[in-house]
């Protein structure tokens, strides 16, 4: 009984953790290049509505995910233009993006509210692997393909960031843009690319929410997940691998906030992920380790040639 409960919880944890993971991977890249994007919530919700609208009208859910990626990317470019080219304050620009995303999605999503989506990305069960004891039931039965995509993406993005010259370029732009610039790196280009990637992944995360995880559109359906992503990025020390662990911990908390409702008031359960995010950051701050040193040095500072 308990065994089945634990296995079921872990399996659903993957589903809840996936949008968080995708968002966190993107934000890690953006921040590694020196740009905080607090617009994750806005980019996610833009992804969610454009995916739903596309899948609903064309009947093709994968096209929906593609459009979600484009929508998230376009939204990210607005933030990139404001914060990189116009050197606007990154905190405020990100907030503006979130407001705009919530507003536009609410406006253009109104007609889609409450409509059922027939063409969804359905869950799959992997033959053979499903028979592995325990692990098979958790990982390989009734999971969404996007869950696997995000899992595969994690080591790839981690490898690129830490083991390739592209990764060194990104990290050096985030650590010391002036030095990177004098070494011939185009700081602006690198930052634009990283912010764009962040937007694309956040858009896909939103698309996953509206056409795979719960195939429906409700306004504000991201419900703070984008903000959890910002916390997770710090919690993960800007490392994709740790981002995966963190995303699943928070995925479990979100899942449990539904699962434990027979026992505890639902509103108190819903506080749990947010309270835990604060506690996790406190634990990081007072615990041993050198988290602080991982933070990109030039985070939140626009780069101006000739200064410093």
């Amino acid at each position, binding site marked *: 009984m308990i065994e089945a409960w634990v296995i079921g919880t872990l399996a659903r944890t993957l589903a809840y953790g996936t949008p968080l993971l995708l968002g966190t991977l993107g934000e890690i890249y953006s921040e590694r290049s020196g740009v905080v994007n607090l617009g994750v919530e806005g980019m996610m919700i833009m992804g969610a509505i454009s995916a739903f609208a596309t899948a609903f009208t064309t009947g093709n859910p994968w096209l929906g995910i593609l459009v979600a990626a484009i929508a998230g990317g376009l939204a990210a470019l607005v933030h990139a233009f404001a914060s990189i080219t116009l050197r606007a304050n990154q905190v405020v620009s990100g907030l503006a993006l979130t407001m705009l995303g919530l*507003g536009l999605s609410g*406006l253009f999503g109104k007609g889609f509210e409450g409509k059922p989506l027939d063409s969804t990305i359905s869950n799959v069960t992997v033959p053979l692997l499903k028979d592995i004891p325990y692990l098979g039931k958790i990982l390989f039965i009734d999971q969404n393909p996007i869950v696997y995509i995000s899992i595969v993406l994690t080591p790839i993005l981690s490898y690129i960031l830490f083991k390739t010259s592209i990764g060194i370029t990104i990290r050096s732009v985030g650590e010391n843009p002036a030095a990177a610039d004098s070494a011939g790196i185009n700081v602006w280009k690198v930052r634009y690319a990283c912010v764009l990637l962040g937007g694309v992944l956040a858009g896909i995360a939103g698309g996953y929410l509206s056409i795979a995880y719960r195939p429906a559109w409700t306004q504000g359906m991201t419900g703070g997940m984008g*903000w959890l992503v910002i916390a997770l990025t710090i919690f993960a020390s800007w490392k994709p691998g740790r981002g995966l662990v963190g995303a699943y911990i928070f995925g479990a908390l979100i899942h449990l906030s539904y699962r434990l409702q027979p026992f505890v008031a639902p509103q108190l359960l*819903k506080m749990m992920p947010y309270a835990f995010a604060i506690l996790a950051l406190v634990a990081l701050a007072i615990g041993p380790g050198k988290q602080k040193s991982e933070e990109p040095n030039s985070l939140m500072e626009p780069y101006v040639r000739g200064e410093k």
Partner: protein
Amino acid sequence: MQEYLPFEITERPNPSGFVIITVSLLALLSAFLVASFVFWAYGTNPITAYTALFDGAFGGVYELSETIRRAIPLLLAGVGLVIAFKAQFWNIGAEGQLLLGTIAATWVALFSPVPEPLMVPAMFFFGFLAGSLWALVPAVLKSKLGINDVITTLMMNYIAINLVLFLVQGPWKGEHQWGFPYSDNFPAAAQLGTLGTTNVHWLTLVIGLVAAGLIYVLINRTTPGYEIRVLGSNPSAGRFAGMSYVKTSIMVMFISGGMAGMAGVGEIAGIHHMLRNPSELSLGYGYTAIIVAWLARKNPLAVILTAFFFGAIFAGGDALKVSLGLPFQITDVFNGLILFFLIGSEILMNYKFEWRRSP
């Protein structure tokens, strides 16, 4: 690269008031221009929309009073945010601090032993205190442990929303509300008076105006205000001069959270008279107050003007919802666009662009 541009860019260290106002107005105009494309894409004639928006905000005495009533919470919370932003403290949590004010007011009105004549002052006192305490958590976490203030203040918003929901659906659910998730109605002694038949709860408005003046004096004419400005613009210089970052953070967040808390008291005691769904108590005033404070260029007196402006956007947005059937998220679109253009245009304020004379 700059040599190839047709104009020269030079820094403008202290932009004049004229430059600030001109650039801000241009930014607002541009935001409205882009918003008209949004209207058009939605299938609404932009001119019709703007006419309805303007009429809804300024078309008559009632419309104007609705604008003022929306401006009240924005004024209180916005003035509070100004002082936090001055100290470079990113308080994104006014929304939650405002809700804590509504909780405190409900406690005073329905569950406390406070005698009736003292109820109104007690509501504002405890509302301030509740908002402050909520804001002190991020203040202590940032100043003592270096934990990101944006995240903690935001997470506290979501906790506050669920706290209100818990109270109205659980222990504080009213016995006379036909099963709706409302608290019971406030007694008459806990309801704020309004001007005539309007919804303008004037006491809160007066508190907001006085607070704007007091905070202006605090920032510009006192020693703690000086420390706020120094630590906000150059933290290491401030620390070197022996100023306490912890003390200043706690002070600004105490005031900032308290002001938002009182904004919540005004909303619940002046308008709703009961605790109810957080999305009905605050229409995102805590978030809009961020733009209010930013547009005021962190000047507490200018907040009076900018709060009024965004009050008009809210009232006008309401009219758009009623007369043209546009969803209420249209105000979010305005808010987001305006904020983008405001920060995007700051470069015009801080730099001069001069056309090169042809050789």
